[in-house]
């Protein structure tokens, strides 16, 4: 069982025995990425990103299916899955992190989330500036960050190297709901 599921189980187990559940879930988180070059702009989005947020300790776990990223052009989507991310081998990307200086209740503020991102079989430490708000008394997290293609050993053939940026901008939005089980 990988680390991500261990974290999920730990979160569920803890919250299952607490009187006031501290756990929130977002099943339809939004993650998009953008590659800007002078040759072409590429963007894709995934609207089925799973995230669990635990207010007991400020931990956040995120998991997404790389195949669920939708591109405007079918050929780009095919190259992304088959050649770059190799989704048959690495179907998911996972982030596990903790909000620094976390306090409850969640108030409108910007915090740093420190954690690790695992993508294409490579794990890297990340610090992500995250805007935290409450909408209808529920937490909403938004933000953006950059990843270096080379950090995750994604091989881009020289013939299309000019079409794909070396730094990819990633944006996210998670609207959480209380987790009920």
């Amino acid at each position, binding site marked *: 069982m990988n680390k991500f599921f261990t974290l*999920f189980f730990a979160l569920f187990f803890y919250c299952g025995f607490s009187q006031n559940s501290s756990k929130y879930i977002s099943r339809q988180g939004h993650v998009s990425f953008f590659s800007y070059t002078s040759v072409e702009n590429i963007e894709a989005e995934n609207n089925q990103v799973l995230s669990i947020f635990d207010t007991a300790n400020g931990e956040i776990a995120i998991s997404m299916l790389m195949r669920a990223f*939708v591109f405007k052009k079918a050929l780009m989507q095919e190259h992304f899955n088959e050649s770059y991310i190799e989704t048959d081998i690495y179907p998911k990307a996972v982030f596990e992190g903790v909000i620094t200086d976390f306090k409850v209740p969640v108030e409108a503020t910007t915090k740093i989330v420190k954690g690790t991102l695992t993508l294409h079989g490579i794990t890297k430490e990340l610090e992500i500036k995250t805007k935290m708000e409450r909408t209808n008394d529920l937490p909403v997290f938004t933000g953006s960050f950059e990843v270096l293609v080379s950090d995750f050993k994604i091989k881009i053939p020289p013939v299309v190297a000019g079409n794909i940026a070396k730094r990819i901008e990633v944006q996210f939005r998670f609207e959480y709901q209380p987790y009920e089980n």
Partner: protein
Amino acid sequence: MMSKKVKIVMMSLSMLLLMGGSYYFYVFFNAAPFSGDIVDYSPEIAISSEFLLDRFVEDEQGASAAYMEKVIEVEGEVKEVTFLNNRYTVLLYSGSKVSYVMCDMRTEQAEMVRKLKEGDKIKLKGVFKGFLMDAIMLNCVLL
């Protein structure tokens, strides 16, 4: 020596081939995913939402291999319809308290999807993308 008439015919044919080839490559490189319209795809597999989730709980790898990127037909009971990020999603009960079948609906389905309510028994088809906590299907249309 080719006659002038043959030369003109050959040049015209070459031009037509070039234009046809260019058009083909333009369409090929710019085609949107599922531009052929999923409505025309016959489902390869027809199953219930409960069976789909059971398969994943029992054997995630085997189930992924069986369903991944295939157009599948799923029958189930509506848990809820959500509208998030400008998209309608239908969640189907799966017999589990924590997992559902999550169906991202095509935009032209909005009018029909808005009429759905909890407990409705429906059939839909879509492209199976994998399993996180829920089974995820994209490009879904109601049947």
